[in-house]
C-alpha cells in the first residue's frame, strides 16, 4: 500500500464550507454571550477550532487502514474511559459525563467514543464480504454500539447515547440489512419503549412529557422548548435585530445547545435557511466522498460521520423548532464546546484520509 498521499487531495471545498459554518457559530456565540458571564467564550471557541484544524490534519495523515487494524485496542480504551467517567467523573447537573483533566479543562469521553465506534463499525462491516446480513452479524454489530450505548445511558446521558445509534443504523443499512430484519428490530424497539420509560430518570421523563405538552408547565421543563420557539418565531423572515429573547436571557443556553435558536432569532428564516443549506452542502459533499472512497471500509467511515452529523442536526434543530424533546445534544460546528468541536474535526480528519486514498492503491 502506498503512502504517497498529498495535501492536494484534501477536500478544500468541504473545509471551506465547514469553516463558514464555524465562523457563523463563533459570531453567534459572541453575540449571544455579549453581556453575560460567558462573554468572551467565542475566543475560546476559536482556539478550539484552531486546535481542531490541527487535529484534523494530523488524523488525515494517519492511514485509516492502520487505524482500523488497531480499532479493537481503541475500542477497549474507549470502554475503559467510559468506565472511568462512571467511577471518577465530575457530577454536573445530576449526571457524570465529564472527567477533569489537569489544567482545569473538562473532557467528555463519550464524544471521542463516537470516533472509535465509527471505526469499529466500519471495520466490522468491511470485513463482512457478503451482501446479506445474518442474524448473528446483526447482533454482533448491535453489540459493538450497544455496550458503550448502555454505559453512556448509565451516566446518565441519553442524548449522547442516542447519537451512537445512527452509526449502527447506517452501518447496518449499508452493510445490507434485510427489510425483514429491520422490521423485526423496529417492532422489538417499539415493544421495548414502555420498558425504557420505566427505567428513565424523572428529568428525562419530564423532558419527554414537556416536549409533548410544552405549555403545561411553561417555566418548568417545558420552559426551554417554549422559549426556544418564541426566540425562533420572533425572528420572523428577516430576523429581529434586537435579538431580545437571546440577549435578555429568556433563551436558555443560547451559546451551546440552543445556538441555532439564537441565530434564527437574529437572522430570521433567511439566515436559518442559509445555515441549513450550508449543512446540507457539507453532508452531500461527505456522501460524495463516501461514494468515491477506495474501499468498503472507507465508505463506512465516511458514512458513519455523515450519520452522526445528520443525527445531531436533526435532533438539535428539531429540538429548537419544537419537533424533538430537549436532549442536550449540541449543534456540531456551531455550538460552543471543545469536545464537540474536536470530535467534528477529528472525524473530518478521517474523512480527509479516506479521500486522500481514493486514487491510491
Amino acid at each position, binding site marked *: *500500500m502506498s503512502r504517497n498521499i498529498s495535501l492536494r487531495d484534501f477536500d478544500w471545498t468541504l473545509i471551506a464550507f465547514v469553516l463558514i459554518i464555524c465562523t457563523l457559530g463563533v459570531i453567534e456565540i459572541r453575540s449571544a454571550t455579549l453581556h453575560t458571564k460567558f462573554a468572551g467564550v467565542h475566543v475560546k471557541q476559536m482556539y478550539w477550532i484552531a486546535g481542531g484544524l490541527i487535529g484534523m490534519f494530523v488524523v488525515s495523515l494517519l492511514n485509516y*487502514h492502520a487505524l*482500523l487494524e488497531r480499532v479493537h485496542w481503541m475500542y477497549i480504551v474507549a470502554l475503559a474511559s467510559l468506565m472511568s467517567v462512571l467511577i471518577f467523573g465530575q457530577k454536573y447537573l445530576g449526571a457524570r459525563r465529564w472527567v477533569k483533566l489537569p489544567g482545569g479543562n473538562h473532557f467528555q469521553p463519550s464524544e471521542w467514543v463516537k470516533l472509535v465506534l465509527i471505526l469499529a463499525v466500519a471495520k466490522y462491516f*468491511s470485513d463482512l*464480504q457478503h*451482501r446479506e446480513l445474518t442474524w448473528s452479524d446483526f447482533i454482533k454489530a448491535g453489540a459493538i454500539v450497544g455496550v458503550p450505548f448502555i454505559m453512556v445511558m448509565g451516566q446518565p446521558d441519553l442524548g449522547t447515547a442516542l447519537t451512537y445509534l445512527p452509526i449502527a443504523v*447506517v452501518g447496518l*443499512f*449499508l452493510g*445490507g440489512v434485510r427489510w425483514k430484519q429491520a422490521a423485526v428490530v423496529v417492532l422489538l424497539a417499539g415493544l421495548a419503549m414502555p420498558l425504557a420509560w420505566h427505567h428513565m430518570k424523572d428529568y428525562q421523563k419530564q423532558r419527554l412529557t414537556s416536549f409533548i405538552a410544552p405549555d403545561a*408547565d411553561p*417555566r*418548568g421543563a417545558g*420552559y426551554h422548548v417554549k*422559549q426556544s*420557539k*418564541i*426566540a*425562533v*418565531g*420572533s*425572528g*420572523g*423572515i428577516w430576523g*429581529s435585530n434586537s435579538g*431580545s*429573547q437571546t440577549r*435578555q*436571557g*429568556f433563551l436558555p443556553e443560547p451559546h451551546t445547545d440552543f445556538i441555532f435558536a439564537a441565530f*434564527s432569532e437574529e437572522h*430570521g*428564516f433567511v439566515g*436559518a*435557511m442559509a445555515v*441549513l443549506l450550508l*449543512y*446540507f452542502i457539507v*453532508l*452531500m459533499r461527505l*456522501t460524495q466522498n*463516501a*461514494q468515491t472512497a*477506495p*474501499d*468498503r*471500509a472507507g*465508505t*463506512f467511515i465516511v*458514512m458513519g460521520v*455523515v450519520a452522526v452529523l*445528520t443525527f445531531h*442536526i*436533526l435532533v438539535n*434543530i*428539531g429540538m429548537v*423548532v*419544537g*419537533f424533538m424533546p430537549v436532549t442536550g445534544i449540541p449543534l456540531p460546528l456551531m455550538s460552543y464546546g471543545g469536545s464537540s468541536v474536536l470530535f467534528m474535526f477529528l472525524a473530518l480528519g478521517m474523512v480527509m484520509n479516506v479521500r486522500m486514498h481514493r486514487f491510491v*492503491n
Partner: protein
Amino acid sequence: MFGRDEKLSPVRLTAVQYVILAIFLLLAYGLWQLQVSQSDYYSAAAEENRVRNVPILAPRGKILDHNGRPIVENYRSLTALLLRDSSRDLKADADLIAQGLNLDPKEVRDKIRRFSSLPQYQPIYLKEDITPDEEAFIEAHRTELPELDTIMAYRRLYPLKGFMAHLIGYVGEVSEDMLNQPGFELYTPGDVVGKSGVELQYNQILMGKNGSRRVVVDSHGREVGKPLEEKPAEAGKDLKLTIDIDLQIAAEEAIGDKNGALIAMDPHTGEILAMVSRPTFDPNDFAIRIKRGDWNKLVTDPDKPLLNKAIQAQLAPGSTFKILMATAGWQENIAQTLNVHCNGGAEFFGRRFGCWVKSGHGEVDLTKAIYQSCDVFFYTLANKLGIDRIAKYATTFGLGQKTGIDLPQEATGVMPSEEWKLRNFRQKWFAGETISVGIGQGAVAVTPVQLIRAISAISMDGRMVVPHVADPTGLPPNYLEVNHYTDVKSVPVDENGWNLITDAMSRVLLPEGTAPSAHIPGIDIAGKTGSAQVVSLATRAKHQNNEDLAQNGWFVGFTPRRSPDVVVCALFQGGEHGKLAARLATQVIKAYVDKQRRQPTKVVEKPANGGKTEIGALWTSPDEQGDNDKLQGGRFLIGRPKRSAPLAVAAPGLGGVN
C-alpha cells in the same frame, strides 16, 4: 487485506442522501412554521415575555383620632427573597446569606432544599419584615449575591396588645366570598381589604388605588431600563375617628383584662369617644398572615376575643333597664304617684318575685327605687304598665334594634312584646313574664351601645343620637345607611320626669345609692347600676356557683347629670354586681373630666434604654415644639440608627416600648 473489495450498494447510498434531504425539508418546514406562518404569534409572545405589568401598591389611609393623632399607620415592609433562576449555587451562598439576614444557615439550606421541586420562577421567601440592617446587607451584596432581592409592601401598623383592636378591625387579603359581594366588584384577588371594624366599614375610603408600571424585564424578572408607562398609585384617604386617644387609653386601662366592654359617647352628637371590648386580640397578627394555630385559638376561645362586645354582645340589661321603666312609668302617669312597700319581695300571679335586698327597702317612691334599685317597685310598675307599653317605650329608645353605628355586624338584641312572642314562639305572652322584664331580666337582651344610646337620650331631653365612630364630614353621600346627623330623633319626654330620674341617678354613687364605692369627689356623676343574671339563681346554685354563670355587672353613667358632656357604659361580664362596673365607668368619666380641666392625667415614663421600640406601639415622643407629653400613635421604629430616632416614650399600660 483491504483490497478493492466489493463496492457498497450505490442504491442504498443514494437512499441515505434522500433521507438527509427529507430531514432537511422537515427542519425547513419547522422553521417556516415558526418564522413565517406563526411569526406574529411568537413576536407577541416575545413581547409578553419581556413586558410585565408591575403593580405599584397604594398605601392605605391612616386612621386618626379626633384630634388628628395617628392610631393606625403603614410601614414599608421589605421581604427578602431568593431568586432561584439565577445560575448561582444557592447552597454555597447559604452561609453568607444566613449571616447577613440573621437566619440559621441550616434553615436557609432546608428552605432551598424544600423549594427545589417547585418551578424555578417561584422565589423563596426568606424573611419577612427585614430590618434596615438586613436591607443594607442585601443592597451591599447586589453583585456577590445577585440571587438575593427584596419586595416591598405597605403593611398595617396597629397599636400593640390589642389596643382598640375591635373598633379598628384588621385587614387581610380579599377572599373569594367578598369578591362576590356588592361593593367589592372592583377588587382583584390579592388586594388587601378591611375585614372587620372600621377597616371594613370605611374600606372604600381607606383603600387607595394601586397604580401600575409597564416595564421591560429580563428572564430573572429584573427590570431593564426605564418603564414604558407608569400610572402612579393613589394613596388611600386618611380617616378621622371620633375616638379621643386619651379617653381610649383611660378606658383600656380601666377595664384591664376583665371580660366585658366599655363605651364613652358624646350624648349631643353620638360621637363615640372610646370603645373597648375584652378579651382582645392583636390585629398585627393579621397584618402579614395569621398563623393557623393563632386563628384557631381566637375562634375557639369561649370568651370570643374577636367579638366586639360593645356592639355585638346581647345580654339582659338588668337593673339599668329600670331607667327605661321609670321613663315609661312617668310618661304613662303611673310612676309619679306610685309608692310601694318593699319587704324583700312580692307576689304576682301566684309566684313570689324576690327583691335583691332580702330584708326589703321599706317605703319606696320612684326616686328611692332608682338609687336603691328596688326590684319590688319595678315589678309593680311593670305589672301596671303591661308588656306592650314597656316594649313601646323601650323600642322608642332604640332597645332591641340596631343603633345604626358605623361598624359592621352590629347585633339587634331583643325587646319582647306580645306580638314578638307570638311571632317567634307561637305562644301567648304570660303576664308573669312582664314582671321579670320590669327589672331587665327575662327575654330582654340589649347591646351596650343600645343601652348607652337609650339612657343618654333620657338624660338629654329625649335626644336620640346615632352613635358613630368616624367623622362623617368628607364621606361620599349615602356611604352609610344611617346619617349621623339628619337621622337624629327627638323622643318627647316630660321635663319633670327626666329631671327627677337623673336626679335620682345622681344619688346612685352617694352613700345611700347602690354604688357608693364608685363615687369620685368633685365630679357630678349620675348613673345606674345593673346586675344581670346569666341564668336563674336556682340554676346557678345547681352548678356550684360556677364562675361562668356569674352575674354580669352593668353601669351606665354620665356627667353632669343634665345635658351631660359624656356618657359611659360599662359591661363587666362575671362582675357580679353593678358597682364594680360602675368603678370602671367612673374612671373613664374621671379621665374625661380631668382632660377638660387640663389636669395631668398620667405620668409619662421614658424607657430606660432609650432607643429600641417594637413596632405598633403607642407612645409619646417630643414633637417639634419640644412638647414631651404629646402622645403619638402608630409610629414605628425598628432600632434605626440614632440620627433619626425620636426618643420613644411609653404610654403606660400599653407595653409597647422595650
